[in-house]
């Protein structure tokens, strides 16, 4: 057995302390992974460059040093292999946490994820479990070349048997990664890379205040509801702040879980505000927003004052970096959509 980290939650910086630490999203996930590795020796971290380099975003920084090469595994450059071998390891009782380096590179593993990982429990009549977490840094606004800025969540949310979650802030990230690892179902865990360096206080010794599969009202409001997830939550919070200038009070909901979708707080909110705007970076057509709009229409038809509005990426491939800010929903597009809900 290799050496385990003595203290962990904050990468050793805060050894013994119980005070909240200020962590960015990268460090928060790192701390969550570290705790899971400590608490359960069946947990494995595997992926390209996750060892010495600590991952291209340093999310796994220091983990191999503390837990050894057997538990934090630099894999061959083969995504289908990363997920496919995780299936076998899971069948043998391990709990692999796979890192896919960038959103665009999950596609070589797509077959393993949707045809194998997602269906194993169902096919085996419940006998076999797939406690696998597939971490994917996703989304744009980092000035990258193609295949480095995509939002593939709808492909996975469309697949029964997978759970799909995404965090928007360090506190959630810290707990959600641990909850995902503890879950006996496979989880696609989406990390908004443009928010990786945003900081918040994280009480690393407390306990999570929400189950993994629950949405969160992040800002209460009365005039319209804005539902978003991952990288767009901050954009929507900024829009809500800006909207107060127009005398409008927006309620912002972080969906957090995309499959299963937790829309209870959205229904409750829309019944009060009568207006809903759904925001995501991914392309519009057949995206998460379409599902939210359909469900809210089914559940809250008589409360709606206006059709549900969507603010999304356009139905084009992710564009070259020099035009990505025009492609991505921004605060003004969110506010415009809110305005539209008041014109009916």
């Amino acid at each position, binding site marked *: 057995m290799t050496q385990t980290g003595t203290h962990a939650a904050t990468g050793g910086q805060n050894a013994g302390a119980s005070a909240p630490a200020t962590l960015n999203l990268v460090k928060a996930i790192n701390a969550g992974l570290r705790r899971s590795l400590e608490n359960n020796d069946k947990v494995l971290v595997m992926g390209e*460059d996750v060892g*010495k380099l600590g991952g291209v975003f340093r999310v796994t920084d220091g983990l191999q040093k503390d837990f050894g090469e057997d538990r934090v595994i630099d894999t*061959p450059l083969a995504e289908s292999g990363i997920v496919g071998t995780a299936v076998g390891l899971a069948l043998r009782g391990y709990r692999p946490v796979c890192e896919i380096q960038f959103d665009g590179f999950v596609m070589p593993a797509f077959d393993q994820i949707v045809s194998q990982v997602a269906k194993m429990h169902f096919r085996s009549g419940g006998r076999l479990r797939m406690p696998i977490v597939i971490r994917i840094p996703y989304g744009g606004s980092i000035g990258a070349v193609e295949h480095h800025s995509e939002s593939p969540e709808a492909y996975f949310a469309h697949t029964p048997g997978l759970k799909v979650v995404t965090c928007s802030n360090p506190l959630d990230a810290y707990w959600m990664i641990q909850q995902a690892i503890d879950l006996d179902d496979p989880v696609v865990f989406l990390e908004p890379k443009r928010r990786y360096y945003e900081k918040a206080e994280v009480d690393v010794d407390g306990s999570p205040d929400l189950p993994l599969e629950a949405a969160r009202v992040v800002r209460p409001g009365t005039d319209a509801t804005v539902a978003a997830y991952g990288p767009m939550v901050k954009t929507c919070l900024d829009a809500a*702040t800006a909207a107060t200038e127009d005398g409008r009070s927006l309620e912002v909901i972080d969906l957090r879980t995309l499959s299963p979708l937790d829309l209870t707080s959205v229904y409750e909110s829309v019944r009060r505000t009568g207006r809903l705007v759904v925001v995501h970076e991914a392309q519009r057509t057949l995206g998460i927003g379409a599902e939210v709009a359909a469900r809210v229409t089914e559940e809250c038809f008589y409360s709606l004052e206006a059709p549900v509005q969507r603010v999304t990426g356009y139905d084009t491939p992710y564009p070259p970096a020099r035009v990505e800010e025009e492609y991505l929903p921004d605060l*003004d597009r969110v506010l415009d959509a809110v305005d539209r809900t008041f014109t009916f």
Partner: protein
Amino acid sequence: MTVETVADPAGAVPPEPELVQLLTPEGQRVPHDHYDALISDVDAVAVQQMYRDLVLTRRVDSEAVALQRQGELGLWASLLGQEAAQVGSARALRQQDHVFPTYREHGVAQCRGVDPLRLLALFRGVDQGEWDPRETGFHLYTIVVGAQTLHATGYAMGIQRDGAIGTGDPDRDAAVIAYFGDGASSQGDVNESFIWASVTNAPVVFFCQNNQWAISEPLERQTRVPLYRRAGGFGFPGVRVDGNDVLACLAVTREALQRARDGEGPTLVEAFTYRMGAHTTTDDPTRYRLNADLEHWKLKDPIERVKAYMIRSDLADQAFFDAVEAEAEELAVHLRAACRELPEPTPTSIFDNVYVEPTPDLVAQREAMAAYLDTFDVGEEESHARAGISGEVAR
């Protein structure tokens, strides 16, 4: 609990894998029974041309790294150290041959007549690689590792179907070359392409630049046998060449391409070289590799080696070297200015070319975007005030 590592299977790794070398690091020409004949036509002019290719390639690369540092490019994948592998193999190509590159083949691009400015445009983020593969025979850069090896194989199958191999007509018989890295050799696509090429006997050369690293992962994370020996298991020949020796790369690739054109099927060429720089401009190699390795490989520099050979063998005089230097400088100055002047894409251009004919839905989305952007001219103050609150850049 330690995962046991299996000892090397007996004989799997020969102590000194055979490496085709025609020039020593000191620039001494080493005679070779087999490969000398393949470059018997290479005279002083041809060596000078390759030297020029090498120097210009390196200059484009170093200029691009500098431009990235100045914020003019989002990213750059440097080829420093791999110039000879690229130039040597590219100069073995004929006009009708086709190249399927990764994202680091700037030297091959240059030999195929792709304007280096087009490479800069891709990494600057103004487009996604807008050279014409039909004109240059140099296909688009491929970021998803390994995918292009299958495209290359399929293209080669097309050439085969068209009867453009084995006719003996040097202007007709064609071949394909696929570039990829040691890391890519682990991808399913690459292994599938080996199978396809083998069973169809497709006219394709797999040119692996083994630069020893896949970002932070050393070769040992990808393979337990020398990569060139993989070919045997798939049923075609593999050869390892000194990737820092432009003459050897030329000779070995010429032979492989000719086999393909003659209808004898695929070859795997492993160019044994070293990535001298970072993986890309966002990478920090000091986290995972030793300085001593760099120092060791510096002594094998592909450009210094040819230069020493040329001086030693009287293939060029100082005036020639000065002229190439001046040309490289001129190219750098040109690129520096031209890169900054690359036209920005218009926002609505993102709707171009999604389909051959725009769909009604996309036309509507384009109009909506245009209308939305127009509101900034009218109500610019208001919207910027809104954006200012968050510090998010709205436009």
